[in-house]
């Protein structure tokens, strides 16, 4: 295959990903991405075994919107590693994409297929925590590594812990506690006395709400929880919930809403005047939402996100991710939180293999557990008792800035809550939660 052919293949792959990703595209891109990421192998070393990685993300269902950028950046990172010959300079990375459809049964089926048919040694994904927990059963059974970031229920690293799974973003529990830190500050400043919660009625939503309520009770016991409201995943009309919250007249509302539902809620809540009288701190606003809702997002609300590029542009790896992304997809394009976290996950695998001196799963797993790795947020340790990256959460007021064509968090007042300040405090407590496989 000539250079121009390879360049064409690469361009087609990226064009496909840029435009849309479907089940059929997955098959096409699996092959094309494999060819693309193997290119340096043919150029440099032809003897070593490729390192196969399954990428399990949804291109259908509620999570599709958040998968686009991770699917776009992972081949760039793989190609970057492969330009050095691959893992350990001799194992070129092959990426095999699969659509988990945001469904646990499909995720488990695809994970099994990736392991048994494609012989992958690592699975990167997923979006939904329910899917991640279903996949955890499969990877634990087959002793395959799993690197996750977007799906972030605390149970993944605690109750459902498996030593083969590594978490590269803050868990829902960590984020909820980080929100508590910010909200406690606001309660004191503004004299808030009562609040309500609105969460999506599934694993992540329940978990995020529970941790927030429990921790706020400890931090500010006098603050009264008036009511818990639950909307189904995929709710299209939040009007009744919004009017119910307004009828309660709380000082603030805590929302555990993500994805498309979050966007729907914000759009409808703004139109209904919810934010005129009720504060809404801690709404999940990843960079994806900041970009996509640039026009509609209410300014001044306090959001939380996991790995915003704009807060880490002084870090070399973040600069690299942004440059790679913009060079390939255009000057107006930026990687979102999920793209950055999954890029970190793939780079962590590279660092783990280098440290272990082998690509054997057990050795890489042991080398990553407790290791300090280079990430786009700086050097961060991985907790040895549950494989949780000690990564921060970011809270800030949504404001417009001249540097970007979309709002970001106010750099002057942004609160960065470190992971170790909000995760389950001690490893003994973590281990007490990890009863399932002990």
């Amino acid at each position: 295959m000539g250079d121009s052919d390879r360049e064409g293949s690469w361009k087609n792959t990226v064009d496909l990903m840029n435009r849309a990703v479907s089940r059929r595209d997955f098959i096409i891109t699996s092959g094309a991405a494999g060819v693309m990421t193997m290119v340096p192998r043919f150029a440099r070393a032809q003897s070593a075994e490729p390192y196969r990685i399954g990428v399990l993300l949804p291109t259908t269902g509620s999570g599709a919107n958040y998968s686009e950028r991770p699917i776009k950046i992972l081949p760039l990172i793989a190609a970057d590693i492969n330009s050095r010959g691959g893992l350990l300079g001799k194992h070129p990375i092959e990426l095999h994409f699969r659509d988990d459809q945001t469904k646990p049964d499909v995720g488990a089926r695809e994970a099994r297929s990736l392991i048994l048919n494609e012989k992958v040694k690592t699975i990167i994904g997923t979006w939904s925590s329910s899917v991640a927990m279903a996949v955890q059963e499969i990877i634990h059974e087959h002793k395959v590594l799993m690197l996750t970031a977007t799906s972030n229920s605390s149970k993944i690293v605690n109750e459902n812990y498996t030593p083969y799974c590594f978490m590269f973003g803050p868990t829902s529990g960590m984020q909820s506690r980080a929100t508590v830190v910010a909200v406690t500050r606001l309660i004191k400043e503004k004299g808030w006395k009562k609040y309500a919660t609105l969460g999506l009625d599934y694993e992540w939503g329940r978990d995020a709400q529970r941790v927030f309520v429990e921790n706020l009770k400890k931090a500010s016991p006098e603050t009264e929880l008036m009511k818990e409201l639950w909307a189904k995943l995929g709710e299209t009309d939040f009007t009744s919930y919004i009017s119910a919250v307004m009828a309660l007249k709380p000082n603030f509302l805590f929302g555990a809403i993500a994805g498309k539902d979050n966007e729907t809620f914000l759009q409808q809540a703004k139109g209904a005047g919810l934010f005129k009288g009720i504060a809404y701190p801690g709404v999940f606003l990843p960079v994806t939402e900041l970009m996509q809702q640039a026009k509609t997002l209410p300014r001044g609300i306090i959001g939380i996100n996991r790995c915003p590029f704009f807060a880490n542009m002084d870090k070399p790896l973040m600069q690299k991710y942004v440059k790679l992304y913009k060079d390939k997809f255009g000057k107006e394009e930026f990687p979102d939180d999920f793209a950055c976290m999954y890029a970190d996950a793939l780079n962590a695998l590279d660092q783990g293999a280098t440290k272990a001196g082998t690509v054997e799963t057990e050795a890489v797993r042991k080398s990553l557990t407790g290791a300090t790795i280079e990430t786009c947020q700086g050097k961060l340790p991985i907790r040895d008792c549950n494989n949780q990256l000690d990564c921060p959460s970011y809270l800030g007021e949504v404001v417009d800035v001249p540097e970007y064509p979309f709002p970001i968090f106010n750099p002057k007042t942004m609160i960065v809550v470190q992971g170790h300040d909000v995760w389950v405090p001690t490893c003994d407590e973590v281990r007490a939660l990890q009863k399932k496989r002990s």
Partner: protein
Amino acid sequence: MPSDLSSFLIQLFSGLSRAMMLFLVASGLSLIFGVMNILNFAHASLWLLGGYVTFSLYQAFSIGFGQHGFLLIPAILLGTVCMFGIGWLIERVLIRRTYAYELPEQLLLTFAMILIIGDLIKLIWGVQNRRIFLPIEPIEAFGGFINPYLFIVIGCGFGIAAALWFFLHRTRYGKIVRAAVHSREMVSALGIRIPAIYAGVYAMGVAIAAFSAGVFLPIMPIGLGLDMDLIVQCFAVVVIGGFGSILGTFVASLIVGILYSFSVLIWPGGALAIIFLILVTVLIIRPWGLFGTEMRF
């Protein structure tokens, strides 16, 4: 419970808007089943496709004339016409082949359409959510704030209900459609082309869905998977009201929408359960629905 009249009225208003949103989507589904006996599982997917078409038309108009909210009106109307054509084509090419078959074959075909439409949307519009931004500001009403756009949604719901009633009861074509519901053989024996009636009704059902998707765009971002989120509640409404009964669908939408709205306030955890409890009760006591006829059951 709502503690005062203001909260009660706002919750009632929310319930009414939810009811009209449900009716706008479910009425086409009910119409298609009522006349053609086709359980169109792909109805919500066609609704979603209509939303994307309207979105693209609005974008195209905005490029030509600048970003103005009123451009949504021609975009919705043109989108409705486009989807009428697409609906007609689908009926002629696909649906008509299933008239001789039983329900499982119809379900298989329309389920396949869901997958095809989903992939088509991904190929054309990608996986990102799409939305139309209108600078809607809340207004003060009933002693609180409400979204003024919901008046438009409610108005459209009542408007479509009235238009459908007028069409079915006061126009010659509508009377033929109603006659076809009762005896397609007799209508055919009178020299009326049943296939054309069927294609027209199917296209009309799809067009109503597309119209509603366009109306919802300023308050509801559209994205993949939205169709599956909607179709279950639409089926619940149609079953409660009685398959094929527009009046039944309208009344069931009101019951479901308003009850759901107050359930959220009183018993948030069980709001959805109440809807399906009603559905089960109706299926046990009156399987043909509140306004359906035993004959159709």
